């Protein structure tokens, strides 16, 4: 073992205020940064263990390129000054590099008070360094440090690296998060004792099982524990593969993106469970048929967004899925933007601030956009949200609004009959209307069958009732022996279903009783008999 000189940890002053104010809002968001780091060093496997169920220690180990102690020392001395993307844009395995600012490692400051990094880059040496973040945590110290330096860097602590021998060619990085913050631990341990709240997803057979259990819970993730939420969110935000049938069962909606993700060969395993993107539509039993229950619109955009400097390219692909019922779990409602395969925040339920009230329609839409080029300058430092005044962001918004509600020109073309293509919201309305009409028709048929039964039972002979889509001279006619025809388009029928049913019942009973009776008295008696039987 070789004890090396202590190293001062320096952070760019420009970003320290942002970091210290807690930029990673959920447990998954902080861990996402570590997964992204593993992705950037061409790891094919990342094992995360949360130390379930007491959450005493988190371990994250990957089989990526690893680091030398010099590399690590450099990173720690220049937090916020990453050169990853300056040197090259893709990794050796052809993955787009995610890290840009070099603050990912400090994401852990929101999880623990101390972390240890052990890494070897195959040169026959491994180093170990334990970084104490308690100083970084102290608000007063932070204020003092911020007051001391306006620009340049701020020293937030020091660490002592140790160097050991390691098998030559062995590459890995192990990060252990020790002294987990109490709040973080309690959050993960918490199981609400509330009615209608499921405890947790117990021993799923695989990730598909996990996804299905959450998707079939009406209230989605809210019904599960924070631990389940952590797994679900990590799966959503990390550059993991899709489930085999995902994102839309039986449809090839983003084949190119799926192929790319498969080629990255990046596996994230958390507590023994291999993560996949938890997106699988439709899992609702009542949403089955494409074209009447659900559908999707592929999204493709590749243009230069013009600005005062000439313009820059914006390229993204994806899909907008929609269905006639609200999407479950609710966490999948909205639009999710991924830059370099990593989700930026979560699904935006406001549909990128759609300007008109979309009402329940917004709950029936779920989309993913994979940005290949551009938009990165719109990212806020937390990598969870966008600067909404950025021209690229505005361009994305416009494209999505167009897909959702269509453009004025399209509407004009539809009116003139030039185009029949409906925007997403109109399609959802159409699906809902079609479904409603179908349901009404089925209910009416049921009612007709019921009337048929009453008439046949009362008169002890078989009567059949036929509904025709014509106006007819009369609303109801006995057209043939023992056949009653209802002319559905007749103006006499009230619009309200309930009233219409009452009208039908009375008119059919009247026609039948008059038709089969010889005297007025007999007709009256039959009518009353029919009414009596049909009372219920």
């Amino acid at each position, binding site marked *: 073992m070789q004890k090396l000189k202590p190293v001062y940890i320096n952070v760019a002053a420009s970003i320290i205020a942002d970091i210290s104010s807690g930029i990673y809002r959920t447990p998954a968001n902080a861990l996402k940064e570590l997964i992204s780091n593993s992705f950037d060093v061409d790891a094919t496997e990342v094992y995360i263990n949360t130390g379930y169920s007491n959450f005493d220690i988190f371990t994250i180990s990957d089989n990526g390129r690893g680091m030398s102690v010099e590399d690590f020392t450099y990173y720690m001395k220049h937090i916020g000054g990453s050169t990853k993307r300056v040197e090259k844009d893709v990794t050796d395995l052809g993955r787009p590099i995610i890290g840009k600012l070099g603050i990912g490692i400090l994401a852990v400051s929101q999880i623990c008070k101390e972390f240890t990094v052990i890494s070897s880059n195959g040169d026959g040496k491994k180093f170990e360094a334990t970084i104490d973040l308690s100083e970084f945590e102290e608000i007063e110290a932070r204020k003092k440090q911020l007051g001391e330096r306006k620009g340049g860097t701020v020293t937030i602590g020091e660490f002592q690296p140790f160097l050991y*021998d390691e098998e030559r060619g062995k590459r890995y990085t192990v990060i252990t998060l020790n002294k987990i913050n109490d709040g973080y631990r309690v959050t993960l341990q918490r199981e609400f004792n509330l009615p209608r709240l499921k405890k947790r997803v117990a021993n799923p057979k695989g990730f598909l099982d996990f996804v299905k259990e959450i998707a079939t819970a009406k209230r989605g993730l809210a019904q599960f524990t924070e631990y389940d939420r952590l797994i679900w969110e990590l799966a959503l935000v990390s550059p993991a593969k899709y489930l085999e049938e995902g994102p839309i069962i039986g449809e090839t909606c983003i084949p190119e993106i799926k192929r790319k993700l498969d080629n990255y060969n990046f596996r994230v395993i958390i507590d023994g469970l291999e993560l996949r993107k938890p997106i699988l539509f439709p899992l609702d039993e009542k949403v089955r048929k494409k074209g009447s229950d659900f559908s999707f619109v592929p999204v493709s955009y590749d243009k230069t967004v013009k600005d005062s400097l000439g313009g820059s390219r914006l390229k993204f692909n994806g899909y907008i899925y929609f269905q006639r019922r609200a999407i479950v779990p609710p966490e999948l409602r909205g639009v999710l933007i991924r830059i370099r395969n990593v989700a930026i925040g979560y699904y935006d339920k406001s549909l990128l601030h759609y300007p008109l009230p979309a009402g329940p329609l917004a709950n029936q839409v779920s989309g993913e956009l994979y940005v290949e080029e551009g938009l990165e300058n719109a990212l806020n430092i937390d990598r969870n949200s966008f600067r909404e005044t950025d021209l690229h962001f505005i361009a994305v918004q416009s494209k999505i609004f167009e897909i959702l509600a269509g453009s004025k020109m399209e509407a004009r073309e539809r009116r003139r009959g030039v185009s029949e293509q409906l925007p997403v919201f109109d399609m959802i309305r159409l699906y809902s209307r079609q479904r409603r009409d179908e349901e009404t028709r089925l209910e009416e048929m049921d009612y007709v069958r019921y009337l048929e039964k009453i008439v046949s039972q009362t008169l002890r002979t078989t009567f059949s009732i036929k509904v025709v889509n014509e106006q007819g001279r009369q609303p109801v006619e006995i057209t043939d022996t023992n056949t009653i025809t209802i002319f559905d388009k007749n103006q006499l029928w009230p619009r309200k279903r309930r009233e219409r049913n009452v009208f039908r019942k009375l008119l059919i009973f009247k026609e039948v009783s008059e038709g089969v009776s010889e005297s007025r008295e007999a007709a009256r008696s039959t009518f009353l008999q029919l009414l009596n039987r049909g009372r219920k």
Partner: protein
Amino acid sequence: MSEIDQKKREYFKRLYTEDPAKHFVRVYGWLDTAKKRLKEIRLDDRRRSDFAKYFTFPGEYAIDVLLLAENGIIEKTNLGFPGVVYCERQPDIISIINKKLGKCRGVFADTFERTVWRSSFKSYCPFDIINLDLTREIFPLNGRSESNTIKAIEQLLWLHKNVGFDLYLTFKSSLKETNPMAVKEFEGLVEDNLKNNATLEDAFVKNCGSHVKELLKKDFTLFWCKSFPKWILEIGLTNNIAGSLLSEYVYLRKPRFGDPYNIITFLFSFERKSHGYMSKPKMVTKTQQEILKTFTISPFDVDKILEKNSKGKKKLADDARRISEMPPKVASM
């Protein structure tokens, strides 16, 4: 990497994964006893289909966990081992174990001596099987004479008062590396204890051939084998659990660096209360009988057993290697 370091690494890997003596104790000691414990657990109507709850220090290769799970003693699911709680101090080792075992019931990133005092540890108790595989001295040379390990074992037994469980205890027996003050104190304790009970003293002398002091000088390992179980059973008694020593195993380790030393494994069983209430005097009598028995039990000399059976030795080494090379637990799709 220097050649010496490489050899050292290989030696330790062999020691844990291929040592037939160690695996002999795992298979014929731990596993056999665990099977009996599982039967005992399932006699209880409420636990008819339960598996054993297991606490261990699994080490890098977690062979004990994998072996017990393979034999249906502890539960194994797609994700991991929901009945296993373990503690390990070194973070890098934890990451290796985590990868190997997947999701367990609990992980403590601390020493055993500190873990047992933590309030969160209490919530996992009681365990059905506690495997304290210390692989070092119970009174380390650089430690205090008032061993923290001893205190931790006491606490563990206190946490299991009135419940039935098995305790497997393994430690290194090396006079050179043991705190002499602590040994002296322990020797005094045993001696004083025996002085107060003529029957026990007679039995000790009869079975060990000499008094405590002489035995300590003559055979340090035998001294532990004869005196340590008595101490454990007496602690059990103070916590209202009547224990018994099931068996003890001794084998020699010849490290490449340093002097050879012995490893001792004790297998204890403690009865659970539902077997019928035992009055304190009855419990005292039973414990005394058990202590007397411990004097008569001779430890299994594993090396001797294996010496005669080279085929079995190879089989054990192969089995240990096979288990240590099992792929990590991953539930995909």
